[in-house]
């Protein structure tokens, strides 16, 4: 149907190697971008600030993590700590009176350096041990942030974000904040898409598939693992800063706890490891599904169809989370991206169909 391939002839390498070789994919991306750009026009403020904006920022964070976990194959269970480092660094730089642009870059660099230190320590091991080491990093960073008053502003403190301008645009009001988040999401998306088709990305994939084999064909696996940690932590740190400035407008240590790390890993896994569109789908699904379920149950309870205690209602997000992770791993290990891919492939050969399964 609209994914028609006939008549699409790539006569030069550039056209065959472009990001979206199929015209249908291209116009879909443009429509999505137009929809995202026009969102403040047709979307109520409530939806814009409490659904669209966090979705975009969390997608950017999930993309940074998918670069590390999906493309480079290094598991990271402390990514919220990386984001926390970014958020706290940016807020301290901005409060010291420096421009917001420098605060963002500083956030990324600090997160990348600290992430790399832990990465280098942990890179002797892989798989399960890497999970445990990054888990330990999460607890250590949390503790340092809470217990060093110079960072957190004292125990149980909330640091408000100062008013900042980004490229001469004051970051106030829902629309400006939304465009800030959108800009960051677009930058990360384009970056990750391009990393996947460069030599750097191919080296990462080689390391992911088998690091010994990669070193045999001349890929310095330690260097590329470290580079993956650096890039991904940089993006994660800036995402944390964007999250703090555009969405929360304040930071507390609880915003970046261990459960947030798990949430991020869930986004990546539910979306599909290493997939860019999967990061968006996964972030949306993980953010929205518990809210939707809770609302549905609350509605059913109000209508009197079933009796739900408020206590049970409060725990539905957790249950939904666990069940989502389990369900996806059991029934669609490649995540939502695979479902999207199946649909796309169906339309690629429409009106014919693949035989078999």
């Amino acid at each position, binding site marked *: 149907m609209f994914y028609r391939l006939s008549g699409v002839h790539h006569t030069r390498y550039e056209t065959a190697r472009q990001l979206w070789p199929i015209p249908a994919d291209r116009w879909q991306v443009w429509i999505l971008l137009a929809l995202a750009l026009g969102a403040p026009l047709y979307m109520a403020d409530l939806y814009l600030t409490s659904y669209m904006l966090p979705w975009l920022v969390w997608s950017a964070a999930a993309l940074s993590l998918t670069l590390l976990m999906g493309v480079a194959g290094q598991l990271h269970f402390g990514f919220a700590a990386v984001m926390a480092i970014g958020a706290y660094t940016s807020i301290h730089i901005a409060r010291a009176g420096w421009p917001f642009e420098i605060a963002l870059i500083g956030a990324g660099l600090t997160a990348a350096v600290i992430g790399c230190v832990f990465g280098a*320590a942990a890179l002797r091991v892989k798989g399960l041990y890497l999970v*445990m080491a990054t888990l330990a990093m999460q607890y250590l960073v949390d503790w340092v942030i809470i217990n060093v008053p110079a960072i957190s502003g004292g125990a149980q403190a909330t640091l408000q974000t100062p008013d900042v301008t980004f490229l001469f645009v004051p970051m106030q009001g829902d629309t400006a904040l939304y465009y800030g988040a959108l800009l960051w999401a677009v930058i990360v998306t384009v970056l990750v898409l391009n990393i996947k088709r460069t030599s750097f990305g191919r080296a990462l994939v080689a390391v992911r598939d088998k690091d010994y084999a990669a070193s045999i064909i001349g890929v310095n696996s330690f260097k590329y693992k470290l580079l993956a940690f650096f890039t991904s932590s940089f993006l994660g740190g800036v995402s944390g800063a964007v999250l703090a400035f555009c969405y929360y407008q304040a930071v507390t240590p609880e915003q970046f706890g261990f459960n947030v790390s798990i949430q991020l890993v869930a986004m990546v896994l539910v979306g599909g490891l290493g997939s860019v569109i999967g990061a968006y789908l996964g972030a949306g699904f993980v953010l929205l599904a518990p809210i939707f379920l809770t609302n549905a149950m609350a509605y059913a309870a109000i209508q009197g169809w079933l009796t739900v205690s408020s206590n049970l209602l409060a*725990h*539905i997000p957790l*249950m939904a*989370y666990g069940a989502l992770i389990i369900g996806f791993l059991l029934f669609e290990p490649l995540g939502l991206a695979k479902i999207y891919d199946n649909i796309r492939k169906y339309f690629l050969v429409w009106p014919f169909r693949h035989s078999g399964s």
Partner: protein
Amino acid sequence: MAYFLELLVNGALTGLMYSLVALGIVLIYKSAGVPNLAQGAMVMLSAYFIWMFTAMAGMPIFVSIGLAVVAMFAFGLLAERLLLRKMVGQPIIMIVMLTLGLEIFLRGVGPGFLGAAPKSLDLGIPLTPIIVGDVFINRDYLIGGIVAVVLIGLSLLFFRTRIGTKLRAVSDDHVSSWSVGISVERAIGISWGLAGISAVAAGALWGSVQGVDWTLSALLFPAIAVVILGGLDSIIGVLVAGLIVGILGSVIPGYVDPIVGGGTRNVVTSLIILFTIMLRPHGIFGREDIERV
């Protein structure tokens, strides 16, 4: 000095009670090669089971512990049959996330259906501490430590029985176990059931110490430190590493907490994990993994 001794003794006993949680992880890893991150939630679940049988059904405590053993054995078998068996051959991240998903799910189910407020579990252990010289010893911890040592001893003996030998064979190599007629699936199921039973012991004791609520599942973190330090597939490692984690996690915070303002125990646990992984990833007694291209 008395302060140090008290920290040391109570730390050692707490550490033994961590071993009780860690034992379940090792039992499963030893046979199935699966790191069970749901063990914390299984401890919580068994504490909830015991509480349900005593407080809601009004049964005596030891009967309800027995019933909880049955329930958790069944839970272990079911978890293996319904969840883990489908994941054979998948990459490790999938399996880790699956057990973590189970942990999160149970963390919602337990408090969600039974109420989030902490519930007390009375094992009939008197609250008065035992006083040896200047040292106060908590009776709960003492009994917990004894139970832990007994259970670890029992599991060491268990691996010398017929079923235990099969489990050891399975832990060595799945394919060759199949070829000599050992049912790998059943062996792994049994190890999950045994992990459920050790979770009941941990749940009863920890539940009586700190009450039954979701925080019981947070015991996963010290238990992970214990298994990493001791070696993921070593039962004797659980005992030794439990003592080390418990003592360090009690003595260091005992002196450092007043200076920095608390929460050092998690830091000590994290550092133990990090240093073990940096210096000797397979732990003190663990078997080193050798990988081929």
